[in-house]
Each structure stands twice: as structure tokens, then as C-alpha cells.
């Protein structure tokens, strides 16, 4: 039920706040989605869509940071059992 799918905002359909709608691209599929909850979104942004509405704008910087952190996982100090803490 809480499935959310990331997609790219490609064009506006309606910009009235309550009815704000944009076309969102999910791989090869395109669908009109409500943008009423993400007024800060611009064309080219990625959003997470749930039940036909965008519930967040993906923070690309945060995503990059997470992946960079994970790439250096083996250099992170270990906490827990074998680290003796």
C-alpha cells in the first residue's frame, strides 16, 4: 500500500495549486500525477509517487551522499561486537 515509485517530472499539465498535475516518466512509462503536495518541484526533478500523487521531491544531494557513504563502507570504523564496544 505504501509503495512509492521514483519518476522524473517531464512536463506540466495543470498548475492550479489544488489541481497541479504533471507528466511523470517511470522508465518507459509516462503518467499524469498530482503535484499538489510538492509545490517546489521543477521540470527535470525526480519525485516519489504514491497512489497517483507525488509525496516528495527526491533530494539528489542526499541520495549521492548516501551512495558515497556506502561506497566507503569498508573504511568506516566498525562499531559493535568485533570492534569490542
Amino acid at each position, binding site marked *: 500500500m505504501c509503495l512509492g515509485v521514483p519518476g522524473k517530472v517531464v512536463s506540466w499539465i495543470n498548475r492550479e495549486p489544488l489541481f497541479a498535475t504533471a507528466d511523470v516518466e517511470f522508465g518507459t512509462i509516462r503518467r499524469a500525477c498530482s503535484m499538489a503536495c510538492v509545490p517546489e518541484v521543477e521540470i527535470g526533478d525526480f519525485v516519489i509517487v504514491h497512489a*497517483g500523487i507525488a509525496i*516528495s521531491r*527526491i533530494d539528489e544531494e542526499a541520495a549521492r551522499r548516501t551512495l558515497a557513504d*556506502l561506497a566507503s563502507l*569498508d573504511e568506516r570504523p*566498525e562499531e*559493535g561486537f*568485533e570492534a569490542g564496544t
Partner: protein
Amino acid sequence: MKYLDEFRDPKLAGRLVDRIRRAASRTWVIMEVCGGQTHGLLRHGIDEALAGAVELIHGPGCPVCVTPIESIDFACELAKRPGTIVASFGDMLRVPGSNGSLNRSHQEGGDARIVYSPLDAVELAIRNPDRDVVFFAVGFETTMPATALAVLQAADRKLQNFSILSAHVRVLPAMRGILSDPGNRVQAFLAAGHVCTITGYREYGELAARFGVPIVVTGFEPVDLLEGILECVTQLETGRHCVTNRYERSVRAEGNREAREIVDRVYEVADRPWRGLGIVPGGGFVLRRAYEQFDARWRFGSVATELPVLGDVRCRSGEVLSGRIRPTECAEFGEGCTPDSPLGAPMVSSEGACAAYFRYSRFPGQIACPVLSGQE
């Protein structure tokens, strides 16, 4: 696809598994609240890859599953009512009530339809001005902005033939209920990433402090799930219990302000019965008085009172939903109860724990899931 593939990298997932196994000095009990995460954990074999280091208990995070049978029966009665269309998400049409599902009501001459979004149900009402369209609204906080928006759009368009049957639920009171149970075994929570996308996670601070449990906001892909579990294990091993966000690309501390505002305009918090947990104080939402004309319970109040509540005594969904038993401990699992012929909602829903165990072949004494193959 961007923001999916990177977080499904099997090599990275494998390194995280090793890291978690090295960090754990004992088996820690962690509950994932969200049914979507339950399916992700089983699909990718994470539960088996971490056996011995982490025991995953599946939470009540399947809104379809915790919907009281009375609401399903009410929806079925509405679907059978001449001139009415009941619309809902696909799973909801298959969940058995006391006397069959919405699908069965449809087969018997009623009208029940699947929609992808509550906004599609508003369109349905516009296209069918001579029919009453009722959207059966199930879901956690994640789904509420969509239904609240549907109500606001219907109000703006002055629709007289659209209403919703609200079965929305709140996650946090259910987590509190689980931690307050004297038999509770949960030592840490993976908090549901998309619920927190809407609500934020500040409210969890009090829960983490009071019960001494780490609460880690977690996403849905295998790398996300393992990141969340590693954070839980690290905190447990070092005696900490903080609220930490490991789904930063979607979740902000304060949540989504616009979405919360839209929800607040339409809904207010109320006590609600959850299947498996009983009455959860503050566990659900009802429409505010100003929007009562969009409330199916108000519009069709006379329909609700005539129905006896029966239920299926063989279904142990209550124990499954509260984490007291695993699906495979139910005598009916895979025999008297399958996705094609379900006794209860957890075997139907795409987020139900019983359906996950069935789909990913977690039959007793059998290990059949490819471990972190990264395959769908």
C-alpha cells in the same frame, strides 16, 4: 531506473550483510513496521541472509489487513446498492468480509471497481453524475494526502455524488501499542520510509526514549533495508536508542508540510479498532465535520446498522499482525488458506505477511529463496 538500481546492487547488499553479521554479538529482534518492507526483506532473502544475527518480526503495517471486517461488509453492501459504485485499490476488492469480498459483490450484480488513485475515483464520479461513487479509502499516512486531496477536489467541483469510506490508520499509536504489550520482544524498529515522508520523524523521539528502542527511518530497496538494519544493530550493540533517518533522499525531519496541511484540513485523529490489536487510541482518522457530506458513513448511515459481524474463526490474522506468530505457524497456511482462496486479509494483500511467506516459499523446513540475487 534511477534511484532504484543503485539501491539494489547485490555486491553492496552483500557487504552490508557481512557488516551486520560481524557487528551482532547475539540475535537482535527488529520489527519492520511496513508490509512493503516485509515483502522486500523476503523477496531479497534478507531474513535468511541475516539468520542468527537478526530476527525480523513483521509488523502490522498492512492497512488492508488491519481494516475491520465491519468496514469491508459495509463496502460490500454499498457495492450491491443500486446506483452506487464502490472504488478502491486492487487488494481491497479481494479481501473477504463476513460474506464474501467486494469482487464477489461485483459478480453478484453490484459494482466494485479498481482505481489506481483516489483522484481517479473523483473522475469516475464526474463521468457518472447519476451514480453515487464511494471511494473505500484504506492506507497509512502515506495514502492520506491522496484521499484528502480527492475530497478537496470534489468539494471544489461541488460534486454531490462522491464520498469516501475512510479506513485510514496511523502508524505511531500501533508502534506504541506493540511496545506497551507485556509480551513485547521488539528491540528496535525500522520505521516506514514513506509514512515518514509525510509525517516526518520528530514524534518518534518520545517513543525511542521511553521504551529504549532504536527507531531507524528506512527505505524499501535491499540496500536501504540493510542500511536501516545495520544502524539498528550498531545502536543496540553500543547501548544507544536514537531516532535516525536512513532514507534521507525522501524523508525530512518535519515531513511534507504541504501534504500534512492538506490532510489536516480534511481529517481529524480518532480511536479506531485494528484487526489484531483491538481499539488503538488515536489509531485512525475520521473526516472533519465540515466535510461530512463526503463521508460515506454519514451519507449511507442506514446501510451500516443492519449487518451482523461474523468473521472467520480459522484465520489467525490477529496474531500474525501483532507479531505473536509467524504465518507458517497457522495450521491453515498454504492448505486451507492460499492467495487464490484466502481466509483472511494477510494472505490477500500485496503487503500481507502471509502472502509474502507464500509467495517467497517460506514453508516450514524449506529454504527456497535466492539470497540477495537482486532478482525480482
